[in-house]
């Protein structure tokens, strides 16, 4: 993707904007990339077709806020969960289908994995991670020492990692064993990411820092210096960088040449004094989209360190951000309920 000829006010020329009734808590695309979904604090889900000027579909789904959303393991549709303790599969063409009810515990995290013939859906409710197959049948429940604060599948769907107090647990999904590999580090871990080549697991921590474990040997990696907590972290598609929020720039830790230990992070798209709240790594290129506390939306190219302002800002912090699977579209949402779709495909 070339950034050279991108117009300056992309949101105005290539954006579709809607004002919704409540804060946008999460956004994502389905696996086919045909629909973007926006989850809201009032429990509703809004489905936006990416092509044409089709109407957005609004579904009143959860009692309370939608806390988690992911693409379904199927080619189309989504899985959504909320503080009503319910996990739904949602598609544009069918009634929402309840997969699981936790019986009181909030469901704050969902994830999915898909390959040609198989698929997995996971959700975290309290101390347990529940795994479901492509048909929504529950396969197993994995127990942890404290509430699970983040889950992630590895790139091959062989393992799932869960963050909790004093570290993370790494489970082999097919294993009959009741015990995971424990990655230990004292403290409260609040988010998680797995390196695309499974070289490392990284968690966000309460103390405004990230902690990593190199997977072959379990060696610790410390990444600190953030002025605020990291709420959003992800590896670039090739695993060379870990992008993170929590500073007034996109903070990128190098995972090559011996890094990140002892290497300073790359900081891109700094807006002085304004916190970066969400990041999203492009699925095919070394590009990172970032949202800020003042509503600004920025695209940064790592190799050239060039940045493009997609939106100058607004009244409300960016609270949700996601790329389409082919990397041509970007969806975002704000705390004030602004939801947007940007078409960044070459023309």
């Amino acid at each position, binding site marked *: 993707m070339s950034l050279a000829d991108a117009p300056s006010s992309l949101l105005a020329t290539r954006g579709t904007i809607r004002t919704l009734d409540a*804060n946008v808590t999460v956004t994502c695309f389905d696996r086919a990339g045909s629909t973007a979904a926006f989850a809201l*604090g009032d429990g509703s889900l809004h489905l936006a077709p990416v092509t044409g000027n089709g109407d957005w579909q609004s579904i009143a789904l959860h009692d*309370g806020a939608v806390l988690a959303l992911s693409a379904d393991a199927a080619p189309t549709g989504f899985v959504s969960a909320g503080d009503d303790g319910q996990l739904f599969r949602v598609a544009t063409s069918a009634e929402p289908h309840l997969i699981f009810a936790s019986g*009181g515990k*909030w469901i704050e995290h969902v994830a999915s994995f898909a390959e040609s013939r198989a698929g997995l859906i996971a959700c975290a409710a309290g101390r347990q991670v529940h795994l479901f197959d492509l048909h929504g049948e529950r396969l197993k429940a994995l127990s942890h020492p404290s*509430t699970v604060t983040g889950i992630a599948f590895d790139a091959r769907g062989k393992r799932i990692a869960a963050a909790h107090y004093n570290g993370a647990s790494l489970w082999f999904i097919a294993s009959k064993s009741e015990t995971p590999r424990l990655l230990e580090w004292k403290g409260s871990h609040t988010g998680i990411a797995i390196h695309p080549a499974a070289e490392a697991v990284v968690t966000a921590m309460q103390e405004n820092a990230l902690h990593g474990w190199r997977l072959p040997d379990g060696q610790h990696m410390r990444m600190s210096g953030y002025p605020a907590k990291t709420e959003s972290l992800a590896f670039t598609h090739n695993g060379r960088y870990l992008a993170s929020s929590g500073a007034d720039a996109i903070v990128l830790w190098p995972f090559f040449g011996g890094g990140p230990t002892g290497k300073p992070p790359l900081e891109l798209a700094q807006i002085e004094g304004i916190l970066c709240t969400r990041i999203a790594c492009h699925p095919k290129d070394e590009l990172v989209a970032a949202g800020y506390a003042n509503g600004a939306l920025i695209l940064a190219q790592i190799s050239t360190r060039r940045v493009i302002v997609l939106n100058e800002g607004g009244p409300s912090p960016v609270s949700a951000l996601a790329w389409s699977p082919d990397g041509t579209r970007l969806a975002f949402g704000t705390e004030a309920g602004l939801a947007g779709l940007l078409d960044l495909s070459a023309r």
Partner: protein
Amino acid sequence: MSDSLVPVTVLTGFLGAGKTTLLNRILTTDHGRRYAVVINEFGELGVDNDLIVDADEEVFEMNNGCICCTVRGDLIRIIGGLMKRAKKFDGIIVETTGLANPAPVAQTFFVDETVRGRTRLDAIVTVADAKNLPARLADSAEASAQLAFADIIVLNKLDLVSNAEADAVETRIRAVNPLARIVRATRADVPIESLLHQSAFDLSRILDIDPVFLDSNEHDHTEGIYSASFEVSRPIDMQKFQEWMATLLQEKGQDLLRTKGILHVAGEPRRFAFQAVHMMADGDYQETLAGAEEKSRLVFIGRDLNRPQLRRGFEACQVAA
């Protein structure tokens, strides 16, 4: 202190003291306000309400080299989640289990920036059973800690004791915590307005409490927790105070359960309100009512308080005479 911050009330108290009765009262009384209630045992309340949040008390130690700095990570998570809801609350009530130390809950409001940015700790309310409190104080360290941390103490089950017994229990509570407001009750029949939206962390009323009362030396040492209060008349040198307090909290923070103060700072028309829970301290300038006295007062609630040393330390924070 901004009004946009959602007030949080922490409800502590021993099993059987009447905490659940009080919570049920808050949830079922028609007071026209919406409260989210964070509880530990789902179903305990017998009230079906979408505002009830089931939590596990999950405490962790901060990696900041401070061994008493324990925090409720689950609360940070839950408050973050509640703030995502479209329908806003008038307040949040956090129940702790009977045996819980209230410090981690209180410290959570000092430690986490997101929590601080959206909520404020309104009051720690402890429910005490007038009949059984003396026995609890004798057999458990948590009982006196729960009294020590309280801003408001509901002295419940008064129908089970005589007036003289009630007065005696109140005297014992005062020995541990002279700052808390005591509300007498039977079957937790307390007007809800007297417990919620109290801004009990608004410390200006410390100056209104009779100093003779605060300085009572006849504290009951059997609990091991008592209070010491000091007053100085010359303005405070803020730098000296902060240095002294930082060192004091670092060295003695584990024994200092709560520290509260109102300071008349040199060259500053507003009063500085200061408070700490163990080692975690916080303070800001407050608008002062006309005619307020130009004195400063500091109250410690804790164990092994060295009165002469504390007095000398506070006195040395005054500007030169």
